[in-house]
């Protein structure tokens, strides 16, 4: 059993955590939820020995402990499965599992013992991976199992899962939840951090809600419905998550896509988009959602015709952007934003010629930044701060501003609310609806079906690179979408 | 100590002698070749490997030039010239030449100690080894033509002391840190010590090149208003010093460099007031080494010839003055 008492941690004058108490029991799944910035990751870093708290005590099995290094925490039986997996891509599964604790014989690696440890741990977590495969070559979900196997091989009694499902496709998520239940039944204690409240409800015994660095409430099963948890997280009653849809029937066609192919992941895509319409693109991971949007935006080589308000669109991404097609990528850190650069720099980035011809007009860019700050309610201290210092939701707003600055007619949004907390999600939905109301056409690709159902006028479902279905109105249910997405089989429910 | 000009003369005489001698007794010569025989069979071309440092400054460029010139002089010998930019590279280059097969090796070592083992291997395989400039740490060479770096500094120091009448301030401009540099600088300082009135006011580094020498002296000139002379550890650097002095209108300061660069020798010859003298350390010593190897190996009979050839010669450092400059001036050399 791990217990944290009266934990307070300050970064400079800012208190990230204030007098937090938390008790993780073996044989129990403990949910940890809160909006971004609520202090979850600081708490996890303290538990895993990455930082030493300013005040407060940690105890393991009633004995006070002080973790100066991650190694000490893992020796005490606490293992962490990070969202960004901590595996070495160019080592094999076996080597990763024993990494840093390799069994030795006569000073040399004991390969046989390493293999045995790995095989046993993989078996325990039900991993199908080849122990000799390079981690680089494994799909994400399998990599995660390797990481969990590593925790198991270290005889961890408490495993902390830091947003493990954020990067997983649906079937893998379901499997992972099953594994967590199984580990619990074997007497392992689990701390589970997730933005997906349905997952929390499905597996947790206890849920601690953090807000502004403090524990605001603790909930116990079975009283864990999202409708109960969400208001505690955001500290206010959520207005309706999804704004009302505008009527688009009879509006002129904004974009027409015909026979668009970017092999192997986009094949013969064909659809129309009306002004003011929000079109969803659903599909399992690998179905080709991102690739479809990138092909439209000119970011990957493709064949087929695209026309914008009757005008044919062609050329590279720069030309298409100028013609009015903007693509906001899913991964803000890698592709969407320059996280090290300032907010205003980012907002000007996709429209450099506009702000610099040839000399940079810093004043105009600052004015644009301030305008977007007002319009999208971006919470920032200074336009000169690096965009990486903002919360996920605000980063996403900056990304939106960056591409809206060019006044596009069609906005392609890829996972617009990934890694964004629930309060900010609602705001982003509102922004998207407002943009549509202005007459812009939006395409939203997402792995979160409730989001598509709540937001879109119409949803295209992709499977293996093809658009296999289109649902509208009352047809828009998770079940129908999953039917299309997975072929004919019926989708299973989380619980 | 043998004067360089004397060596050249005797060498030419010796080589013609060998040619005459062996041509009349060719059959016996091939029969008498020793077991590990360095000498090629009669009628075969003599194969000589020449291993020298890459051209990283004027003097080594001169070594390269002289080696190529000498090669052209002996169309009947198969002379392979390989340049190496580091001791380890030189070791592998020599090994490669041994593997290919040579009768003789002429080596100007980048570093004495590092090259000794591979020279020893060559010797053990019966290859005739001529060492030029820098020796080996063991007596493995058949002939060692030694350059005199201590003398390089000493001869210049003696001239400076005399010209200054035992009184004055000088800058000693050194090259890159290396054995050669240390020997030259110490030779210079030791000899200066004998004249207490001469003061070495600075020992800046000129990196064996004109630009660095120019900058270093340029920086120091304002500090030493009463400077009388500059000694430079080679002629590349001496030219940099000249430029710095001219730009600062300090043409009353004069320079003694060394190495036998043709431009500097010319200046001395033309009685340039800034170059009253220089000292020799001519890169053509590699030519002497090649001459010796060729003449020793050509047409066999090596055992007998050993008795005619010296084991060790030190190439004297000569003071070049307007009076004798003509004999050290090689206008066609690139150095």
């Amino acid at each position, binding site marked *: 059993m791990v217990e944290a008492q009266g934990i307070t941690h300050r970064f400079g004058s800012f208190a990230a955590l204030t007098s937090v108490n938390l008790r993780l029991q073996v044989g129990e799944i403990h949910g940890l939820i809160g909006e971004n910035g609520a202090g979850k990751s600081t708490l996890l870093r303290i538990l895993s020995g990455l930082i030493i708290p300013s005040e407060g005590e940690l105890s393991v099995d009633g004995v006070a402990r002080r973790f100066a290094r991650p190694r000490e925490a893992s020796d005490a039986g606490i293992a962490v499965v990070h969202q960004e997996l901590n595996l070495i891509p160019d080592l094999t599964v076996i080597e990763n599992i024993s990494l840093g604790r390799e069994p030795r014989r006569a000073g040399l690696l004991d390969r046989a013992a390493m293999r045995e440890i790995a095989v046993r741990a993989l078996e325990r977590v039900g991993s199908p991976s080849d122990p000799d495969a390079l981690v680089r070559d494994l799909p994400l979900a399998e990599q995660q199992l390797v990481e969990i196997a590593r925790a198991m091989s270290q005889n961890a009694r408490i495993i902390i899962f830091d947003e493990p499902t954020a990067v997983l496709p649906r079937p893998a998520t379901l499997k992972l939840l099953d594994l967590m239940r199984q580990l619990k039944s074997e007497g392992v204690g689990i701390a589970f951090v997730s933005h997906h409240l349905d997952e929390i409800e499905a597996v947790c015994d206890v849920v601690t809600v953090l807000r502004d660095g403090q524990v605001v409430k603790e909930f116990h099963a079975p009283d864990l419905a999202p409708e109960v948890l969400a208001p505690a997280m955001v500290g206010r009653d959520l207005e309706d998550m999804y704004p009302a849809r505008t009527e688009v029937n009879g509006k002129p066609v904004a974009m027409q896509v015909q026979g668009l192919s970017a092999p192997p992941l986009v094949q013969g895509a064909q659809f129309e988009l009306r002004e003011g319409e929000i079109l969803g693109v659903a599909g399992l991971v690998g179905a080709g959602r991102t690739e479809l949007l990138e092909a439209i935006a000119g970011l990957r080589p493709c064949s087929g015709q695209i026309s914008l308000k009757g005008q044919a669109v062609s050329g590279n991404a720069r030309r298409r*952007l100028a013609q009015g097609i903007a693509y906001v990528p899913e991964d803000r850190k890698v*592709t969407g934003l320059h996280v*090290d650069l300032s907010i205003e720099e980012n907002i000007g*980035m996709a429209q450099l010629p506009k702000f610099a011809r*040839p*000399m940079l007009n810093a004043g105009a860019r600052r004015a644009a930044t301030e305008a977007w700050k007002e319009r999208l309610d971006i919470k920032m201290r200074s336009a000169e701060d690096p965009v990486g210092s903002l919360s996920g939701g605000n980063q996403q707003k900056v990304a939106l501003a960056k591409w809206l600055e060019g006044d596009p007619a069609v906005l392609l949004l890829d996972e617009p609310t990934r890694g964004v907390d629930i309060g900010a999600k609602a705001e982003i939905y509102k922004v998207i609806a407002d943009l549509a109301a202005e007459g812009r056409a939006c395409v939203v690709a997402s792995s979160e079906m409730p989001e598509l159902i709540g937001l879109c006028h119409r949803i295209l479902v992709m499977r293996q690179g093809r658009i296999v279905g289109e649902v509208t109105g009352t047809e828009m249910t998770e079940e129908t979408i999953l039917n299309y997405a997975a072929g004919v089989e019926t989708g299973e429910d989380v619980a | 100590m043998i004067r360089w000009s004397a060596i050249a003369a005797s060498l030419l005489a010796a080589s013609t002698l060998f040619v005459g001698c062996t041509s009349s007794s060719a059959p016996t010569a091939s029969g008498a070749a020793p077991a590990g025989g360095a000498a090629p069979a009669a009628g075969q071309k003599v194969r000589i490997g020449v291993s020298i440092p890459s051209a990283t400054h004027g003097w080594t*460029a001169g070594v390269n030039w002289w080696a190529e010139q000498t090669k052209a002089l002996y169309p009947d010998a198969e002379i392979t010239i390989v340049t190496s930019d580091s001791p380890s590279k030189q070791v592998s280059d020599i090994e490669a030449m041994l593997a290919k097969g040579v009768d003789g090796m002429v080596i100007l070592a980048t570093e004495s100690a590092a090259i000794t083992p591979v020279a020893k291997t060559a010797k053990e395989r019966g290859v005739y080894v001529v060492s030029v400039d820098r020796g080996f740490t063991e007596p493995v060479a058949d002939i060692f033509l030694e350059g005199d770096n201590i003398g390089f500094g000493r001869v210049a120091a003696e001239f400076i002391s005399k010209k200054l009448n035992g009184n004055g301030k000088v800058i000693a401009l050194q090259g890159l840190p290396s054995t050669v540099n240390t020997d030259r600088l110490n030779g210079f300082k030791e000899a200066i010590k004998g004249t207490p009135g001469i003061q070495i006011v600075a*020992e*800046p580094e000129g990196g064996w090149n004109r630009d660095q020498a120019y900058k270093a002296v340029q920086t120091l000139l304002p500090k030493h208003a009463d400077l009388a002379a500059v000694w430079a550890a080679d002629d590349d650097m001496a030219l940099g010093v000249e430029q710095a002095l001219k730009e600062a209108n300090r043409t009353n300061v004069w320079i003694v460099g060394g190495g036998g660069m043709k431009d500097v020798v010319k200046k001395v010859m033309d009685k340039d007031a800034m170059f009253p003298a220089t000292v020799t350390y001519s890169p053509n010593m590699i030519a002497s080494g090649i001459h010796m190897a060729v003449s020793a190996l050509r047409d066999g009979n090596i055992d007998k010839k050993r008795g005619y050839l010296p084991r060790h010669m030190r190439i004297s450092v000569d003071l070049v003055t307007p009076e004798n400059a003509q004999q050290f001036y090689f206008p066609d050399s690139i150095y």
Partner: protein
Amino acid sequence: MKFLKQYGVIVAFFLLFIVSAIMDPGNFLRPENLLLLVRQNVDIGLIAVGMTIVIVAGGIDLSVGALMTLAAAVGLTALNQQGPAGGAAAVAIATVVTVGLGTVLGLINGLLVTMGRLAPFVATLCGLVAFRSLALVIGQAGEIRSMSPDLFPRIANEGINLGGNLKLTWGMMIFIGMAVIAHILLERTALGRGWVAVGSNEKASHYAALPVAKLKTLSYVFLGLCSGLAGLIYASRLNSVSTNNMGTLYELDAIAAVVIGGASLAGGKGKVINTVFGVLILALIGNMLVLQNVDSNWKGFVKGAIILLAVMVQRERKAS
């Protein structure tokens, strides 16, 4: 505090300056000595300015020293082909050839990196050895002397008289001019912002529809131009090109200056003005080592220690 983080190198320079002034006020503070600090380092300075651009754009260029030598060797050969009576026209031809060839060689580096998809380190390492080798071939590994005894050396050695024997040479003015141009390009134009963007995050720049390959190539072209100018000034200073040792290790000195100036070798961060002060710090160290007659075997140690110190002082302290 923010100023210190952004311009720490300027503070470091003035600290070193004060220390030097206290140690040897008589010699160090002479106006001609202070001018020498810039004049002797015009070539390194020009290359460092260009190198800042390349490094900010996420690249590196190891070929600069060899590149300037090759450009100058060809330039001088062109000068000499006009004969001893070539006059101003010959000098103009040499200038155009040297600077033009430098720029073209920079373009080759850039294309190898972008179209050739080679790692910048590898592509320019090839240039480092290959350009030098070509220069050795042209100069027979020796020196190429200019046949313009009077006119050509003026580029580096003549200029505006400031009174006494103080001179602002054309070379110094070219350096200052290029530094100003580079600063404006980097801070005030779409091109510069593009360089920062590409160096900071190449992928995101691609998604923001920036012309990534063009931007990267142009950074090498600009450095090639700077290196060509550096070669011109070097050749003019000595009125000759020593093909075997001109510009050796200049790439490391230039990179050192950029790093002292606080740029990140990972790209996306760096300021031209800070690099200029990085060059001045190196110049100042070299000047003091000569003036103080420090044993030449120790010079490298002192230089290394001061570079280390300058970089450590500027290092961002992690806030969390």
